[in-house]
């Protein structure tokens, strides 16, 4: 039997290096996986992790993929720091897309509200509203926020599905489950012509930097950190735990909603059942890879975006199944958590005792 014993003084250096070690281990395990799939591991890894940098368009695509991951990852980093486990960013993302879609589809072009900020704000508010459900249940009835936020993801996906197949379906869409294309005013401007890179990139950087400042320099950040690290010290300091739960869930939900709204108004341009909400789960890995630091989440988002684009390239060039990208992400999170555990705990073999 292996027992994990807490280490007296976990190494600070190792804690910093843990994401790099995890990435390295993922590469090794990935090479093994490719070899087992009958691929040349070196070539496969090249396609996976280097081909996304091959040309300007690819590089822009990496950034495009990183935008929602960074927005959500930064919000989740704050949330997890406070020991509140919002696992439902995907659902809040979906609601954000729905909110943005409602604004884009139903505000007439001549209205003074026909400006891009409106669908984005609507999306953020819808994401917050969706996250308010686990917040209310947790603070009022002590219901576990992990289950509620996770299950609401499926509710959100079904809601979107119903809308685009039912009331909001484009009557001239040849029966495809999708809405009308959004009007021109509800499109996010591009940063670089000829790519899909849009101004959402600035929002992602601003959100990460702003949250980092909040966490390190303000009372709000301090109380979130104290609540997460030592709930008893937070009570002693007079911080209300319920207030913190509300704050971090609304914050991370709002950012996920904003990410969904950006995705709908930039990449997709309409509502359809598949709008990339899966990124809400990937963002959990992003937050951990970034050491639960909002700025770190920015880097984590880039790493995950590279592997996502690489996964697409591998599908095309190597005819590898799409799920390999998911396997990579899973391995990365697994190795990351394993590294963190082994940095904090020392495994010890002990003789199994008969009862």
């Amino acid at each position, binding site marked *: 039997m292996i027992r994990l014993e807490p280490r007296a003084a976990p190494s600070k250096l190792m804690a910093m290096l843990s994401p790099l070690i995890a990435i390295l281990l993922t590469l090794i395990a990935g090479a093994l996986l490719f070899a087992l799939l009958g691929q040349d591991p070196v070539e496969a890894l090249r396609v996976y992790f280097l081909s996304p940098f091959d040309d300007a368009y690819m590089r822009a695509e990496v950034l495009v993929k990183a935008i929602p991951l960074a927005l959500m990852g930064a919000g989740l980093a704050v949330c997890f720091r406070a020991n509140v486990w919002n696992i439902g960013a995907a659902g809040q993302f979906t609601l954000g897309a729905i909110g943005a879609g409602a604004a884009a589809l139903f505000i007439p072009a001549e209205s003074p509200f026909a400006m891009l900020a409106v669908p984005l704000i609507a999306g953020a508010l819808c994401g917050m509203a969706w996250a308010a459900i686990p917040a209310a249940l947790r603070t009022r009835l002590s219901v576990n926020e992990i289950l509620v936020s996770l299950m609401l993801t499926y509710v959100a996906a079904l809601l979107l599905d119903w809308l685009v197949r039912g009331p909001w379906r484009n009557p001239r869409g040849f029966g495809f489950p999708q809405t009308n294309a959004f009007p021109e005013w509800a499109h996010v401007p591009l940063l670089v012509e000829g790519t899909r890179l849009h101004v959402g990139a600035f929002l992602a950087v601003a959100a990460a930097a702003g949250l980092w400042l909040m966490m390190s320099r303000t009372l709000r950040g301090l109380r979130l950190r104290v609540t997460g690290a030592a709930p*008893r*010290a937070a009570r002693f300091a007079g911080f209300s735990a319920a207030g913190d739960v509300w704050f971090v869930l609304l914050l991370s939900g709002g950012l996920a909603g904003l990410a969904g709204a950006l995705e709908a108004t930039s990449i997709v341009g309409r509502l359809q059942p598949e709008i990339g909400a899966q990124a809400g789960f990937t963002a959990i890995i992003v937050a951990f890879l970034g050491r639960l630091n909002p700025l770190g989440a920015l880097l984590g988002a880039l790493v995950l975006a590279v592997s996502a684009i690489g996964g697409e390239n591998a599908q095309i060039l190597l005819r590898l199944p799409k799920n390999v990208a998911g396997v990579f992400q899973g391995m990365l999170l697994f190795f990351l958590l394993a590294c963190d555990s082994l940095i904090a705990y020392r495994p010890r073999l002990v003789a199994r005792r008969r009862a």
Partner: protein
Amino acid sequence: MTADPSPPSFSSAVSARRPLFEARGIVKRYGSFTANDHVDLTILPGERHALLGENGAGKSTFVKMIYGALQPTEGEFFWEGEPLRLSGPAEARRLGIGMAFQHFSVFEGLSALENVALALPPEPLAALDRRVREVSGDYGLPVDPSKPVHALSVGERQRVELLRCLLQNPRLLILDEPTSVLTPQEAETLFRALEKLSAEGCAILYISHRLEEVRALCSRATILRRGKVTAEVDPRATTARALAEAMVGAEILDVKRPSGDQPRGEEILQVERLSLPADGPFGVALKEISFSLRGGEILGVAGVAGEGQNEFMDALTGERRAPEAGMIRIAGVPAGRLDPTGRRRLGAAFAPEERNGHGAVGDAPLSEALFLTRRHEAGAMGAGGWLSRFWAAGETRRIRERFDVRAAGDDPPARSLSGGNLQKFLMGREIVRAPKLLIAAQPGWGVDAGAAAAIQSALRALADQGAAVLVVSQDLDEIFALADRIAVISRGRLSEAYPAVGMTPERVGLLMGAGHSSPEAAA
């Protein structure tokens, strides 16, 4: 698994009065701290033997070694005359050493029967059910084995724990503070069962700090104080006073204390009929606590662990609110419904027993700990909730200089400080505010002698400047060194506060052990 290789035939041919168990010169050290210092103890077959001592005297450490959960640093154990080396609790159980834990380890969601089954070698549940009902009937320990444990009272849960031990046919049963959570009636039931058990030849090692119980139940008592055996007596032939003296020690009488007749200021803290329900099955309810505290005086609240000190502290700091605002008044203002920050604004300051994780966050730098209790002060925060690093750095430096807090670097994480230095910093954090009221739990706990003396003199100085000081401590030496008046907390009730001048450790010890008889009656 280093089982004793000697064949069992040797141990079977022994006289009846040969010791069942013997400990010789047992020493247990943790670093420089000696928890057990050459402890000798002998248990005869069928004997009911008490291990008495204050909290922290080393009782639990000692029994954990008997049960194989800890290994002694020095010394030897003997089982029926043969040297005994235990590799772990499982081996202890095989030999017939059973232990019923203070906070018994039962699974809430499972039935009583399933909980018992988990501790035993596999056997059909139906057969076990029969055995449980049999043993429970034999010993007068009524329990319905099919009931889920969460539906059982605390007393019933303990019976489950006891039945679990009894089904293993123990020859030595260790009970660690078994009555600490029982009603007097439940305790009575337990005593009857223990008497029957020992009449059948099972020896019992009974760990307690309750003198009356020990006198009622046990024929021999070994008394520990600070890890050493101070006496081995027949408790029935010894007065409660002598037992208390051996437990808490008499030398502390000589500690110099202030005369207690200095002028006292106005009332700063008034607590009136404060009651608070227990917080969970192992919590203690506070019952009608009333006292008042004036500026310039130090009130010491003595008591052994788990008599309601944590609940008392939580109620005073505001971590748990009182049912009515008027139950707690700070500087005359009803404060019972205020949160800790609101109470701090009235001039109160608090120093909890646990420093890492309660008074401060272990991984966070010292300067950040200041914002936990002092963010309402001028200069601590800018508009919009920005923390002033300048203020925090300056205050950190000031506290470290004034209280001689030694640590590496300008702003190290709290966890990296030694116990004494962290406590000096956290006490300093509150004292430099010049509070009107300071409430400290176990200020000298886990602190080296030098730091403890520095903290005591800082508390005294604060009181001399006119502040009211309340010290909750299990350490009687600390109480006697500091307090002008002494009260004792026991089962969630606070005794009257007596002037320290007339108090002796024996009288405090009696108040602790015997509940609420008046000390005059005991003297």
